[in-house]
């Protein structure tokens, strides 16, 4: 249990998807103009990460990993399919995103209209595939750990996009040098937020 909480906190603050690995920057920069749309996209990312990481964990451990096929028959024990992981992971992610899209369209048409093009683009949001690849690289021991890691990374991304959206709403009233307006200042603010988040480094529960 302690271990799970530790992974959760670590994936939110220390290994934050945006500030430590720059994953999902494209939609982060493009959608963060108002807090409202950012909330919607952030929730969608939490949801998709929370689903796809455990599914990909199962795929990795029972199909792709070296020796993973041993549960079918011992003669497959030395088969290593891990070179297929990119294609399988991205297929799972694309189909999950399609599913989420249909659910949101059904239950919240306003949110659906607000998110617009960015919902399908979650499929190519690096943080989603990145979550699965980090899960593979760090070799989590159980399904629970993988799920918690997925959710935690999603929450970290969510916090980051809410933060930047709130700052961008306010920065409209500041006198930014013309050449820095828009994209440039957003980059620099994100960098400063990243430095602030580095204060969490080394936290362990």
């Amino acid at each position: 249990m302690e271990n799970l909480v530790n992974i959760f906190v670590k994936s939110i603050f220390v290994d934050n998807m945006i500030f430590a690995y720059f994953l999902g920057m494209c939609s982060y920069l493009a959608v963060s103009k108002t807090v409202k749309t950012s909330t919607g996209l952030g929730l969608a990312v939490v949801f998709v990460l929370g689903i796809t990481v455990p599914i990909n964990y199962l795929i990795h451990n029972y199909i792709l990993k070296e020796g993973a096929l041993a549960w079918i028959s011992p003669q497959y024990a030395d088969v290593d399919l891990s070179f297929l992981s990119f294609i399988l992971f991205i297929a799972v992610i694309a189909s999950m995103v399609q599913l989420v899209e249909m659910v949101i369209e059904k239950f919240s048409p306003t949110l659906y209209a607000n998110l617009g093009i960015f919902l399908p683009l979650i499929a190519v949001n690096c943080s989603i595939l990145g979550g699965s690849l980090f899960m593979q690289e760090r070799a989590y021991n159980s399904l629970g750990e993988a799920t918690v890691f997925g959710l935690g990374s999603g929450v970290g991304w969510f916090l980051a996009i809410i933060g930047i959206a709130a700052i961008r709403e306010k920065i409209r009233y500041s006198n930014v040098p013309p050449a820095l307006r828009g994209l440039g200042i957003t980059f620099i603010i994100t960098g400063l937020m990243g430095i602030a988040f580095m204060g969490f480094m080394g936290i362990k529960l």
Partner: protein
Amino acid sequence: MIMSQDREPLFSSKNLKLLREPLDDSNPITVQVLGICSALAITVKLEPSVVMALSVVFVMGVSNVVVSLLRSSIPPRIRIIVQLTVIASLVILVDEFLAAFAYEVSKQLSVFVGLIITNCIIMGRLEAFALSNKPWPSFLDGIGNAAGYGLILVIVGFVRELFGSGTIWGYQVIPEGAYGMGYENNGLMILPPMALVTVGIIIWIQRYRNRKLIEENPS
């Protein structure tokens, strides 16, 4: 390639423009805001930046040609899956190649090779260009955009390695004497947030020189 009567020369001015524009006026990173994810995390040193840039050039050039060749036979509804499959297969090639011939670099890049799949530049250019253009212009467009992406990567990698570690491509360039006189490497440059600030400053300089890129009504 099929020869046709009204075929334009391979390097006509229109085609050259496809190559040249992404280097400055429509740079994928600083203007189109695509593909930032992988651009920042691997630019601590120059070497991984260059390897990453070359991998993206390869994947983009080939995938643009493939998708452009298939463009009339891909059903629009499933085009994203088809594009992802094409890209993912190419990225697997790159990944296996790096693991075999440049193991050290491939360890440094870790998951970021795989993340080329979700690099928005590739998907973005496939959607915006390759799906509606002939293979040769698509190829040039892919190479041009990947080069524009690589250019920023190399600049950021160069700056961060020079100021962060005092080396370039692993060779010491700041003389020993400078350290004796009190010069110190800027440890902040090695940390992730400084990549963002460096790109922010590149954007600032570029827009200062090129006024028409300034956003009129930001945020």
